[in-house]
């Protein structure tokens, strides 16, 4: 892993190098060492670049408001304090920050459960049951992927408004339970097509129906796909801003992304410190979720690569 990473090979000559006695072995270790050094320097530089925004965010969360952004570039402030976290945890307009966390968690868990259940069942139908019009419906489902979200905002809003469901979580979750996320259905269909059909044929011979085949054969085999789906739908729901913005009216029902914005107000005064502190806190659950499931995500991706 330590060799041959960068194509840059300017063959630097050592200033105190011994006389040019030809020694292939020693030269090659020297070259190797230089290459390895270059690789590590470049890799470290890249890591620093990728991590810098996160480090900036964490350092800024401990700085007073007037030292964040603008002309201040220093990562460290002498006015180190936890005040921003205190303000962030105080809540907004009488609603405690824990409420925002709870709401976000309800929405995210609801989204994961709904998506995993509905997408896997629909995928089973598309991949394993030969019903009339399957190709057409599959095509139509894929076509919804091409439909930009902004086109459906207003019609969707009118429907939920007339049904009296605005200011509830129903508009935000019902789609997840009805397999409206074509992306996940597609992902699972592709995964299922890769599973050998002999398995469910064998089950059928043993007398299993669709429910049994789906529950006992398919679901356990689909674990990697289910885990990828869970991770993505958790993160998407956790970060969703527009949906909650449009459908929720009571501050007590707001999830975190809406609350975050309330610390910054261009028309009045902005508390960047509190916003950043809350961003740091909001990042933690996603980070934990990812750390817990990350070995499955790698497993999931690698199994998906192996067809049949």
């Amino acid at each position, binding site marked *: 892993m330590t060799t041959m990473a960068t194509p840059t090979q300017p063959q630097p000559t050592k200033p105190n190098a011994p006389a040019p006695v030809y020694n292939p072995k020693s030269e090659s270790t020297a070259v190797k060492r230089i290459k390895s050094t270059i690789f590590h320097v470049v890799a470290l530089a890249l890591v620093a670049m990728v991590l810098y925004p996160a480090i900036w965010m964490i350092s800024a969360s401990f700085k007073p408001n007037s030292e964040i952004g*603008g002309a201040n570039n220093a990562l460290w402030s002498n006015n180190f304090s936890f005040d921003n976290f205190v303000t962030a945890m105080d809540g907004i307009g009488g609603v405690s920050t824990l409420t925002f966390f709870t709401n976000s968690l309800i929405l995210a868990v609801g989204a994961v459960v709904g998506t995993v259940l509905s997408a896997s069942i629909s995928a089973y139908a598309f991949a394993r049951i030969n019903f009339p019009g399957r190709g057409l419906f599959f095509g139509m489902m894929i076509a919804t992927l091409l439909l930009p979200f902004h086109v459906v905002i207003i019609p969707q809003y009118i429907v939920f408004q007339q049904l009296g469901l605005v200011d509830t979580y129903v508009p935000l979750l019902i789609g997840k339970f009805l397999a409206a996320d074509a992306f996940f259905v597609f992902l699972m269909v592709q995964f299922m097509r890769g599973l050998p059909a002999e398995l469910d044929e064998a089950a059928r011979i043993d007398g299993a129906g669709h429910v049994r085949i789906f529950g006992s054969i398919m679901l356990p085999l689909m674990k990697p796909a289910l885990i990828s789906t869970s991770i993505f739908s958790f993160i998407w729901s956790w970060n969703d801003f527009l949906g909650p913005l*449009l459908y929720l009216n009571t501050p007590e029902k707001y999830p975190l992304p809406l609350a975050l914005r309330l610390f910054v107000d261009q028309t009045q005064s902005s508390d960047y410190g509190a916003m950043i502190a809350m961003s740091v806190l909001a990042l933690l659950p996603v980070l934990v979720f990812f750390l817990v499931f990350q070995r499955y995500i790698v497993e999931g991706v690698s199994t998906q690569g192996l067809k049949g």
Partner: protein
Amino acid sequence: MFDRRKFLTTVALGTASAAFLSACGQSSSAGQTGSAENPVTINYTWWGNDDRAERTRKAIALFESKNPDVKVNGNFTDFAGYWQKRATEAAGGGLPDVMQWDLSYLRDYGQRNQLLDLSTVKINTDAFDKSLLPSGQIRGKTYGIPTSTNAFAVYYDPAKLQSMGVAEPDGQWTYKEFNAFMLEVGQKGNGALYGGTDYTGVWWMYNIWLRQNNIQAFTDDGKLGFTKDDLKKWWNTTAELRGTPALVPEERVTQLAPKSAMGSNVTASEVTWDNFMAGYLGDSGAKELKLVPVPSDDPDNLGLFLKPSMLMVASAKTKYKDAAARFIDFMVNDPEVGQIFKTSRGVPASKTQRDGTTFEGTDKLVVDYEKSIEKYLKDAPEPPIVGFGTLEASFKRVSSELNYGKLTLDGAADAWFKEAEDLIKQNA
């Protein structure tokens, strides 16, 4: 199996029931009222930060204790999200009963009959300055009542001027003197501190300059009231300062966003609305900032005016007109509401509310400034044309391209005029 006739019936049924449901939603007569035992609930929405949420909560509690037959349901978002949400609700017919409003969106929603004509309900406007009310009116209908006002001013940081040995301005100055002031600050600032930002890119400052020269920005039929030559003359006001330490370079301003150059302690002065005081103080951490009037070449005509910093409006479809009117009246006139908000919405527009509020510290600075310019004030501008926000933004953008040197003066004036005329034609 799915046969076509069944499918069509389903669609037809679905459409019919949707139409039926929407009919139910709209079958309301004007002005339902409640009682103490059975109160009506109105929805009120505003934009702002947690500080405003806290203050509004107090105001609502006060209103409910005085009006036991009305309950107010409060809801708030940030400014950008606020307008996305309103646009969707307006399209879906579900605007909240009472809303905090911004002047630049008033004509848009008013013309599309989304807002209630407030002259048809009982709201007391006796305590308002007569020159201010027209800014909430479109074609003889009153769509918005101003809660508060703001005015344009030059901010400066007295501590920074003192440390450099620059004399504090007294606010009676010409453009030349203002430019000289910025140049002096910039030269003594030694690259660490600039004089100010290029004020010729600020639409409202241009508007004020036009007023100083007795030119109307927009004619009564919504066309541009000035010529390209006026615009070129204006952009030329700071021509000799560009590239000198008087003006903070455009790329620096971009780097500092979302903070302002003054909020980042990079400039010693800034031309903007007086109600930004609290934000500037918070961003910069400065102990004190002062306000003086804008420059003018005619000392008797400063071109200044009071603009509603925000308004109160009601939805045209509200079922509770009476309750909505009482809530608006309470929010704009009640002295105790003034005590709650102080100047965080701007200086209270209603005299009853203003006189009933005690101002201290920063609040007092802003109120005193507006008092000091009282004799120069002219009529407030009409609600801006539809698409004004775009126009204002493109004014800023074109002038910054001029600053970068990407456009010549003629090219910049042509570019902006073309955009403005297209926009006006589009929205006519």
